[in-house]
């Protein structure tokens, strides 16, 4: 299979303009004849659905939660990047582009990233016009702050709730379109299958989570904006219902899956405290602007932090990376925390935590200033841990947070199935092998507000569509097969719970395909995941029936997909014989234990083709060429 990224020719700055001009247009009067399905209502899905309905398309929107406003974009804390250069500190579209390509360790497509940087400014304009209450300076103009991995202040924020405010903006646009009748919302639905006809994506089958019924919906194009699959690891900062199922099922229908092993492990999360733990909570990395990360110099030092004198503390990030210090990119910060703990200098009851200390900032700025900046984070920390961060340093440890991998898409955000578009975290995205802070919100909204409205039109205008409705045999087949799977799950009546299997899978992936990956561990994981999957299908127990709200069944369906997908994640990690960004292959490191890329063989996007459950998938490679930036070894020293 030849992967065509469809990146337009010409100078980098002109590609997107040129491409938009060349895309065919749908006549305004014809737009209402086209039906579009959007699955997922986070930043990418909600912004896409609202914008498409505004243009006049007939849009159907689906989400798992009871209302679109609860999608997990809502939990993003820190901010959203844009190249406005309001502070006049040297930012530009080019710098945002460059930082993003470099931060992603040179594993993203230049043209896509440049477009993202170009669009970033329009996003801020749009959100402000919607009434998003971004923080402002005393004069009433927009405030910016610097954020993990950047040396300019380009991050816009709304307290520690930027994702919430941006999502409410997109959600309100969505509600406005719902009121207009151009858009219909289907909450509490979970996608079970993608329906194709003559090779094109033409609809979906969903499970109504309240009635349990399988419902069919046809359309001229399908947009998946279903978020990331970090919950494959069981414990992550994702929402409980975040899953891989929608994109996995599209993958099984022919969409290639790109870079599945690129999983971002966020450095500043509240550490795990027990077996029963259901999720992990992020402490925004904006804290790293003021906090200092340290561990005791002595191994196994169990004194309370206040009793450890300055001379016996190791501020290891400042020591190792004098120019970036505590602001090194996420992958670097995470690996260093793991290394300190693995070497026995970790703190807290489990030894798997490091200190994130605001003592010096509180002394310097006063606790009022710090409270204004981080008060809500401190409150959240105190609720969860019962400790007061004003008096004692916070304890943090890395946790699975975001996935750069996802379905492969071309420059138009179309997957390898014509008519299937993938936006936001669900696609393999513009972040290469490591995403910089405050870039996910930017990408989700760029995809939804400013890219898909153009590229979808180009596809619809240039395509002849066969007539199709929900009675077509393609829908019946999908409904039958989903219904069979559900029956089979309910009939197993085994001895282990769904969460029990999920936890096991998570542990396998975390230990063998997490922050540091070695050949032996990955091979081991590749062997035991299929065994676990087999046991799941023989020994899981799910009470209740399929014809009602059955939350255990919902989870079982998702875990069944994670158990198939987990194998691909490991396969991908094994196949990449280098370290890059989040993918740290212990065989490939510099003398200083930094990730060592292999640009001779590693400059590619992996794109996997499904060949059947338990069968070896086929690896296709999209070569990445760098015309505009020079490939360098990242250095944050």
């Amino acid at each position, binding site marked *: 299979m030849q992967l065509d990224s469809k990146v337009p020719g010409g100078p980098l700055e002109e590609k997107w303009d040129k491409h938009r001009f060349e895309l065919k247009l749908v006549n305004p009067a014809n737009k209402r004849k086209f039906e579009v399905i959007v699955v997922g209502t986070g930043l990418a899905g909600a912004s896409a659905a609202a914008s498409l309905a505004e243009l006049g398309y007939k849009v159907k929107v689906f989400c798992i939660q009871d209302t679109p406003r609860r999608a*997990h974009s809502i939990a993003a804390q820190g901010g959203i990047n844009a190249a406005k250069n309001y502070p006049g500190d040297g930012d530009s579209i080019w710098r945002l582009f460059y930082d993003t390509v470099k931060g992603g360790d040179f594993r993203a497509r230049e043209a896509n990233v440049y477009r993202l940087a170009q669009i970033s400014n*329009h996003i801020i304009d749009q959100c402000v016009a919607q*009434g998003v209450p971004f923080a402002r300076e005393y004069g009433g103009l927009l405030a910016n702050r610097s954020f993990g991995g950047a040396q300019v202040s380009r991050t816009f924020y709304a307290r520690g709730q930027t994702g919430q405010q941006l999502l409410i903006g997109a959600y309100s646009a969505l509600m406005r379109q719902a009121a207009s009748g151009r858009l219909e919302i289907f909450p509490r639905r979970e996608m079970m299958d993608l329906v194709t006809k003559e090779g094109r994506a033409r609809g979906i089958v969903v499970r109504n989570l309240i009635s349990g019924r399988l419902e069919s919906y046809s359309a001229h194009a399908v947009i998946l904006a279903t978020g990331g699959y970090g919950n494959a690891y069981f414990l992550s900062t994702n929402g409980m219902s975040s899953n891989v199922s929608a994109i996995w099922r599209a993958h099984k229908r022919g969409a290639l899956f790109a870079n599945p092993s690129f999983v971002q492990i966020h450095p500043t999360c509240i550490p795990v405290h027990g077996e029963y733990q259901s999720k992990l909570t992020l402490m925004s990395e904006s804290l790293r602007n003021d906090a200092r990360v340290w561990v005791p110099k002595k191994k196994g030092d169990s004194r309370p932090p206040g009793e450890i004198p300055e001379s016996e503390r190791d501020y290891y990030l400042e020591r190792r990376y004098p120019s970036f210090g505590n602001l090194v990119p996420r992958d670097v910060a995470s690996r260093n925390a793991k290394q300190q703990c693995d070497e026995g200098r970790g703190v807290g009851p489990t030894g798997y935590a490091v200190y994130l200390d605001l003592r010096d900032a509180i002394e310097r700025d006063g606790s009022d200033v710090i409270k204004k900046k981080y008060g809500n984070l401190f409150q959240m920390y105190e609720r969860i841990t019962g400790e007061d961060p004003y008096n004692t340093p916070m304890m943090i440890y890395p946790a699975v947070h975001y996935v750069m991998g996802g379905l492969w898409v071309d420059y138009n955000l179309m997957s390898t199935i014509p008519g299937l578009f993938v936006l936001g975290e669900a696609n393999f995205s513009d972040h290469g092998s490591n995403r910089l802070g405050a870039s996910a919100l930017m990408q989700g909204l760029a995809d939804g507000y400013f890219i898909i409205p153009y590229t979808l039109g180009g596809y619809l205008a240039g395509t002849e569509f066969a007539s199709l409705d929900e009675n077509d045999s393609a829908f019946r087949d999908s409904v039958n097969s989903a219904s069979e799977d559900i029956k089979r799950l309910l009939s197993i009546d085994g001895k282990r719970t769904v969460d029990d299997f999920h936890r096991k899978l998570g542990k396998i992936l975390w230990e063998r395909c997490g922050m540091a990956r070695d050949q032996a561990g990955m091979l081991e994981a590749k062997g035991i995941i299929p065994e676990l999957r087999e046991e799941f299908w023989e020994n899981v127990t799910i009470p209740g029936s399929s014809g009602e709200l059955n939350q255990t069944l919902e989870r079982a369906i998702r875990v069944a997909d994670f158990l198939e997908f987990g194998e691909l994640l490991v396969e991908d990690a094994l196949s990449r014989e280098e370290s890059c960004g989040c993918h740290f292959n212990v065989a490939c490191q510099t003398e200083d234990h930094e990730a060592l890329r292999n640009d001779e063989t590693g400059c590619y996007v992996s794109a996997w083709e499904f060949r059947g459950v338990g069968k070896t998938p086929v690896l296709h490679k999209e070569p990445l060429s760098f015309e505009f930036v020079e490939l360098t070894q990242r250095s944050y020293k």
Partner: protein
Amino acid sequence: MSETINLTLKVWRQKGPEEKGGIRTYEARDISTDMSFLEMIDVVNERLVLEGIEPIAFDHDCREGICGMCGAVVNGIAHGPQKGTTLCQLHMRHFQDGDTIVIEPFRARAFRLIKDLVVDRSAFDKIIQAGGYVSVNTGQAQEANTIPIAPDKVELAMDAAACIGCGACVAACPNASAMLFTGTKISHLALLPQGKAEASARALSMLKTMDEMGFGNCSNETECEAVCPKEISITNIARFNREFLKAAIVSSEK
């Protein structure tokens, strides 16, 4: 440090909207005080599943207090005893060994019960559809710094916009009124220049929809403010009333 406690749960179980519901009693054993309330229910549910009993259905998602999906009435208080805290952020260290905890769904005429602790809050979406937005299409926006907005105004707007739409305010109100929920959206947008153009139409339309959805009127009980997990002030209701009055006096569509 964490310790473990034993609790008795009295939980509202109801198979479906049309079926009769009732309180069932379950023992929650060896609960770590570091657990969140929902993790405690997870533990009880794991045991129920292994015993072949249908687990307690409850809504939840982000488990970090921001998505607004979780919520139940715990010992008579929406989201439980800790002020300014969603149920998912309530931790078991606030309970004592041997406690009995009564858990019921959010009840209101406008919130139809679906199953156990799960209720239908889609009426909130309908209220937002009635005008909880600024009418700006994608691409129509002007340069973001064109209109300066005083930071204290933005702070007030942000206080209102922090609403997570959980419905605790409705559940706590003796009239099951949605004035605080609706008031936050009216306030958020009326405080900002972007929202001014539509302020009158918005106030009239959202209030009308609120009534149509079956929410009651406000009689200043202030129970909503007391249970709001985001500690949103009832001054937002005052602002709503002001906006409504302004609109009702000058509007042509009385």
